[in-house]
Structure formats: C-alpha cells, structure tokens
C-alpha cells in the first residue's frame, strides 16, 4: 500500500517534470566533438564544456589516441599524460598517481567508468586490471589534474580519471581483439555498442587476459611466495533507452575476476583475488525550465582475498540526484545530492562483524560567463560522514570510539580567460578531502602473540582524520594552427594536511596494550609544472613532447628515525623530472608511433615482509622507449605489433619486480 502510494507520487512527479519538455539527451560526445572541433567534457564542473573552457588542468585521451598508442592497459596509456606517474609493480599490477605522491595502493586518485566509481573503498585503491572495460569500447578518458572534491566528493584529491565508453544510443562501434606476446601473454576481447533503433541501444563487452609474472628483481622470500601469473576476466553489459521524448534511462551490469600479485599499502607483495560485480541504473530527464535532471543509483560488490592476510567483502551503494539548470544566457547552476553507504565485513576475522558508514552530501556548482571571454566557476560541497560499527572487534579501543561523525567541506574555484581564440589562461583553487579507507577506519582487526601472555593487536583507527589537499594552479594553453597542434603549460602549488601513515613496524600503546595501527603522519607540500607541445603535418607526421617537474617536501611526524617504520615517504618518491617524446607517422593504411621517456631518480620504500621495518630503495633515473606499427586492411582488420620498455631486457622501476621488455602482436576486427 505504502509502496503503491510512493510509486504513484513518483510517477506524478516525473510527469510534472517532463511536461512540455523537449527530447532528453545524455551527452553525445562524438557528435559534439565533431561540431565544436574539440573534445567535450563534463569532467571539470559537471556541466558540458569544450575542453579549452574547462576550469581545470585536464587532458582528454581520445579513442583514436588509445588505438594509436598500441598499448594494452590503462596505466601505460595514462602514463603518457604529463603530470601522471606510473609505478609498475608487476606485469599486470601498477599504481597511477597525478602530480606525485605515488605509493603502493595509491588512494589519492578517484577513477570512474561512466560516472560509477571503480575505486575500491576497502583499501582506497584502484586495481586497474579489475576495471570491467575493454580498451576498444572507450570513447575517451578524461584526466583531471588537481583536487576536484567539490564536484566528486571524497577521494578526488589528486585528480580524477573518468573513463567514458561508447553510448549505444549514439554510437555503433565494435571490435574483436586477439593479442599474444612474450611472457606468455594471451588475450581476447570483444566489445560492441549497437544502436538497435532510435529509442534503444545495447552495449556489451567481455575480455580474458593472462600472462606470466615478471621474474627478475631483488625480492625477499616472502615476496617470491606471493608471486603468481596474473589472470583477469571481465564482462559488461548495458542497455540505454529513450523512454519518452523527455526521458532516457539505462541499466548496466558488470563483473570482473582478477588474480595477480599486487604491492600492498604495507609495501609487500601479496597474491590477491578480486571479484567485482556492479549494477547501475540511471535516468536523465529534460525537465524544461527546471533543467536537466539526472538520477543515478548503483551498487558495487567486491569480494577480495589476499593470500597472506585474509579475505572479506565490501558493498558500496551510491544514489545521486542532480539538476543542471541554465539561468539566462550567462549562468549555469548544478545542484547535487548524494547518499553513499559503504559496508565491509571486518578483515582478518571475516564474519565477526562489519564496519560501515553513510555519507550524505550536498553540492552546488555555479558557472558564470562574465564576458564572452571570461568565465568564473565556483563549486562547494559538504559531506556528512556517519560511521556505524556492527559487532566488530575493537579491543583495546573502546567500542564507542567507533561511533564517529564528521562534516567536511570541499571547494573548487576557477577563472578561465580567453584573450584570443587561440589563447587560454586559467587560475584555479581546490580543496578536497581524502577519507580514510574502511580498513584504516576499523575494518582491519587481528592479533598475534609476541611474548608469553602478551598479545599485539593490529587494528584500524576510527579517529583518523581525512587528509586535506589544497591546491593553487595557473595554466596557459595556446592553439598553434601553424603546426596543427597546441602548447600547454601549468604550474601548481599543493599542500596535504593529515597525511595517512599505514601500519608498519611502529608499535603504539593503547590502554596499556601494544598495537599496530594507522595514524595521521604529518603534512607535505609540493609544487610542480607541466608543459607539452603537440603538432602534426599534412604529410602524416605527428609529434609531441612533454615535461613534468615535481618537487615535494614532507614534514612527517612519523618515520623520524634512521629506519622507516611506516610505508610513507613522498619527498623523494616522485621523480623530479620526466620528459616524454612521441613521434607518429601515417602512410595510407600504415601507422607507426614511437615514444621515448626519461625519468629521473626516485626513492621508494619496501618492506621485506609485512609489519617489518622498511628500507628506502633508490631507483636510478632511466630512459625507456617503445613503439608500435600497424596495418589496417580494407576489411577493417588491423594487424599491429607493439614493443614496450625496449631499451634493455629489464629495467629497475621499483624496489620489487623489474619491468621487463614486452613485445606483443594484436589482431583486431571492427564490426
């Protein structure tokens, strides 16, 4: 009865919204890019904008660029972007960071696929190989550099990677791919976005991949035991429908199953098994004068196990509602409300209880076109966090210390000035919050005997404060019609307060009991610059060069002794200099691309085994290079060969496994 009343009310409200409305549209990225001559994005503000208008340092990697790179995985593709740092821990595992602060299980980068987070909240990390997307179904990857918490909420502190797939209501795109190479690499993939009619489209993708794990490297026996050959499987399906002239709706289901060796936040290798499942429904309605109303709801399920640690599961439920309204000719406002619930069975002792929290959030974005050449965008968001433990182990902390509420605010502000139709100047400010992971807040709980009658407790810290990242940035970009390209430069200053310091070998005492726990570990400041030039000729030649400078100064309250006892070190962990060069050539059906990278030295921490003191390992600066060559037959079949890390058989890129040279062939068929 109650349900019926609610449904009737919802139907009436929907009918009211769509009265006299025009045809609703989600964004047709391809059509808009074709019309405006540059990529279109909602990644910076939630409002559709051409890339050069976005009040953020943003790079959009197009489907054509993904294909031209010849690369077979997301981290390597993202690594081509100035300001992005990749640490490859093994043949399938890698961490990606924006503007420094990379570490094992990097928590600072929020990653979304069509607006659904694929960032895993248990450890606050991204397992790239578990993302259920095939490269051939990606329309564009938007990389937003800098904190964008007011738009995305918690965890978008270093930036956001927004992966956008083809939309079957607008796009007909499909490819079958087979890939094989050295190190036992074998892969098959299939993707298809199919417009069934004007009102219905379906998208499907599936892929399987396996390879041998890298072998060389100075690893401890414990690390060696954790190595396995990586294997991943993913499947995804979606249906989009034009329900009425004013309403579009979609559903999406995904699943992935990944097994691989992964570098854990504790700086040790662990063999992990991830099973992810997601279900998402969304609806967009053109509500006439009331704007563009969007409703999205999704649930992510993650079952995870770590060979040497334990297993558990996480359920993440998100409901978002927003209204994007254009007011007059110069103002656009977006109002968003979001509810999020995260729940995890306590880790190491699954089944004993669960830890979960609710987040209620409200945000507003206001974009003001001050003059035709000047726009000013402001956004603010408030997140109310309420944690609810349920039967979890907390000793020696008092159980009531886990009842935690927090209110955090995020801000973004950006001024974009276009003095001419080729020049863009940009000044931005951002403040975002990095929420501690479920494990860090209390999802982790275990104990071990360290002496007769004395037990050591390993547990989270519900009092852990969210890290707060503040950033100021100035940017300039100029289209260069003479070289059919552009140049871009940006400089930023960033500060992180309340850094999180994960569990290491440092013991604390709580209520006279020895514990290993997570703490806030001080602050860190950084500044850096990114510059790039890209161009091409009528003769089929394309070229690009980019430079990234990053300087980080830590002021840690942990790791102050001679030997690091927690896996936290940022000052020397990011290369100060990274230079990339790229040269491409197209001659009819033949395309080729070569790239070369120099990265200066860095120092990364590594523990020989869990909960042991760490050692700082200096990774010397190195050059690396790769290339790809392809031939496209008239039948739509493409044959491609790709070589990565080609300058030597293996390269020391991290304190664990050396990155080995890879060569692989790809055969793909469009359909």
């Amino acid at each position, binding site marked *: 009865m109650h349900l019926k009343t609610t449904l009737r009310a919802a139907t009436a409200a929907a009918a009211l919204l769509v009265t006299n409305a025009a045809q609703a549209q989600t964004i047709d990225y391809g059509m808009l890019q074709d019309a405006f001559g540059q990529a279109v994005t909602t990644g910076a503000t939630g409002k559709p904008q051409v890339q050069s208008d976005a009040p953020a340092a943003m790079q959009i990697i197009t489907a054509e660029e993904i294909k031209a790179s010849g690369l077979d995985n997301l981290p390597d593709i993202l690594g081509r972007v100035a300001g992005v740092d990749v640490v490859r821990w093994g043949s399938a595992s890698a961490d990606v960071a924006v503007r420094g602060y990379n570490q094992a299980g990097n928590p600072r980068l929020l990653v979304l696929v069509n607006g659904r987070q694929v960032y895993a909240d248990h450890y606050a990390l991204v397992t790239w190989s578990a993302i259920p997307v095939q490269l051939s179904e990606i329309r564009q990857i938007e990389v937003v550099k800098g904190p964008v918490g007011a738009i995305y909420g918690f965890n978008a502190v270093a930036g956001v990677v927004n992966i956008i797939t083809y939309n079957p209501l607008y796009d007909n795109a499909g490819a079958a791919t087979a890939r094989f190479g050295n190190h036992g690499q074998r892969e098959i993939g299939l993707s298809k976005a199919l417009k069934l009619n004007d009102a219905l489209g379906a998208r499907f993708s599936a892929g399987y991949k396996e390879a041998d794990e890298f072998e060389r490297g100075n690893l401890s026996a414990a690390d060696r035991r954790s190595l396995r050959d990586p294997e991943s499987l993913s499947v995804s399906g979606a249906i989009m429908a034009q329900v009425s002239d004013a309403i579009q709706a979609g559903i999406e289901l995904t699943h992935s199953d990944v097994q691989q060796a992964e570098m854990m936040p504790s700086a040790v290798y662990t063999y992990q098994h991830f099973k992810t499942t997601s279900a998402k429904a969304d609806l967009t309605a053109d509500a006439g004068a009331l704007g563009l109303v969007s409703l999205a709801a999704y649930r992510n399920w993650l079952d995870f196990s770590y060979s040497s640690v334990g297993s558990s599961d996480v359920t993440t439920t998100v409901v978002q509602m927003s209204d994007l309204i254009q007011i007059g000719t110069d103002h656009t406002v977006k109002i968003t409300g979001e509810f999020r619930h995260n729940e995890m069975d306590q880790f190491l002792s699954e089944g004993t209880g669960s830890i979960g929290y609710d987040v209620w959030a409200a945000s507003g974005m206001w974009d003001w076109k001050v003059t035709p050449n000047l726009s000013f965008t402001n956004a603010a968001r408030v997140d109310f966090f309420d944690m609810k433990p349920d039967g979890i182990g907390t000793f020696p902390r008092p159980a009531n210390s886990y009842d935690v509420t927090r209110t955090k605010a995020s801000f973004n502000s950006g001024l974009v000035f276009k003095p001419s139709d080729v020049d863009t100047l940009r000044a931005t400010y951002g403040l975002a919050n990095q929420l501690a992971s479920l494990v860090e807040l209390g999802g982790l709980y275990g104990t071990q005997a360290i002496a007769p009658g004395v037990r050591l407790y390993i547990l989270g810290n519900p009092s852990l404060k969210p890290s707060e990242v503040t950033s100021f940035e100035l940017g300039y970009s100029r*289209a260069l019609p003479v070289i059919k390209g552009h140049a871009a430069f940006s400089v930023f200053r960033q500060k992180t307060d309340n850094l999180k310091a994960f569990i290491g070998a440092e013991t604390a005492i709580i209520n006279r009991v020895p514990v290993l726990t997570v703490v806030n570990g001080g602050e860190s400041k950084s500044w850096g610059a990114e510059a790039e030039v890209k161009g091409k000729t009528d003769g089929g030649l394309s070229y690009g060069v980019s430079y990234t400078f990053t300087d980080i100064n830590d002021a840690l309250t942990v790791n102050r002794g001679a030997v690091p006892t927690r896996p936290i070190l940022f000052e020397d962990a990011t290369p100060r200099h990274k230079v990339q060069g790229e040269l491409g050539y197209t001659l009819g059906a033949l395309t080729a691309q070569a790239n070369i990278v120099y990265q200066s030295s860095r120092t990364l921490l590594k523990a020989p085994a869990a909960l042991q003191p760490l050692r700082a390992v200096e990774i010397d600066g190195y050059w690396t290079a790769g290339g790809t060559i392809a031939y496209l037959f008239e039948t739509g079949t493409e044959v491609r060969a790709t070589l990565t890390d080609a300058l030597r058989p293996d390269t020391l890129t991290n304190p664990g496994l050396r990155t080995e040279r890879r060569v692989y062939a790809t055969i793909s068929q469009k359909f």
Partner: protein
Amino acid sequence: MSNRYFQAPLRALAGTFVLCCMASTPAVAVDGPTAAVAVKALNFVQPKPAKPIPVAIVVDAGQSAAGDTIKGALGADVAAKVVEGSGDIAGAAAVIVVGKADMTAKAAPGQLIIGDMACMEAGRCALAVERQASGAAKYHVNSATLTKTGVAFDKNFQMLVTAH
C-alpha cells in the same frame, strides 16, 4: 618606493584586460566551410529532424552561384536547395541566409535561421558560427530570435553555445 611604479603597468594590464574582454566577436561571412559547420547544429535541434535534413540557402537575387558553392560544401546529411530572394522555404528545417534577407517573418515555427555574425547580432538570424584559428568552432545564438522562431536545442548543446 612610490606606488606610481606599479600604477602604470597595472593600468596597462587593466586596459588590455578590458579590451580583450570587451572585444566584439569578429564578423564571419557565411561561406561553404562555415555553413558546413553551422548545419551540424541541426543534430541538436529538438525534435531531431530526419536525415537528410532539408535546408534552404537563401541568396540575394542574382547570387545563386554563391548559394551553389555553399550547397556543394554541405555534407550528405543535408539535402539543400538554393532559393533566391523571397523564394519558397517551406519544409526546410533550416534556412541559411547568405545575403541581407530577413527571413524571421517568413520562417515557419521550428525553422533554424543561420547566417553570419552580423545577421545573428541584428536578430535576423538565430545562429552563426565563428570558425577559430585553432580549428575549433564557436556557435553563437540570438536567444530572442530562437524563441521567436520556436527553435529549441538539446540542453547539452545549449550550454555549449554562446548566447546573445
């Protein structure tokens, strides 16, 4: 140190800023390539017209050659015809005004009138395109004319255009 040291450069900077911000958009005549970009806006008109989209190119008397040049530049998604002066524009989803004709009174509800920047600023046309040196395109719309002619765009497109 006197503030005068800063006043002159600040004044120059402010002057440059004002000049840049206040500068009017350069007039761009409708030629073939510009019209080819302009008709892409028809993909975002609500309700969406069926393809090939009928388009009338209205030229001043004796200027059919100019109309034919534009017609030749439009893609296969458009079925164009050249009309002189006060010719028949019935059935067209869009009217491209090449000369000085004012089609606002004659246009049927829902017909998109495309012209150059001067036409759009004068309110005789609803849409004009500015092709930029970078290769990008900027769509300008006259909101009053759009309303008067009963043309509505998809909201995402509407948020990307420059409204006057």
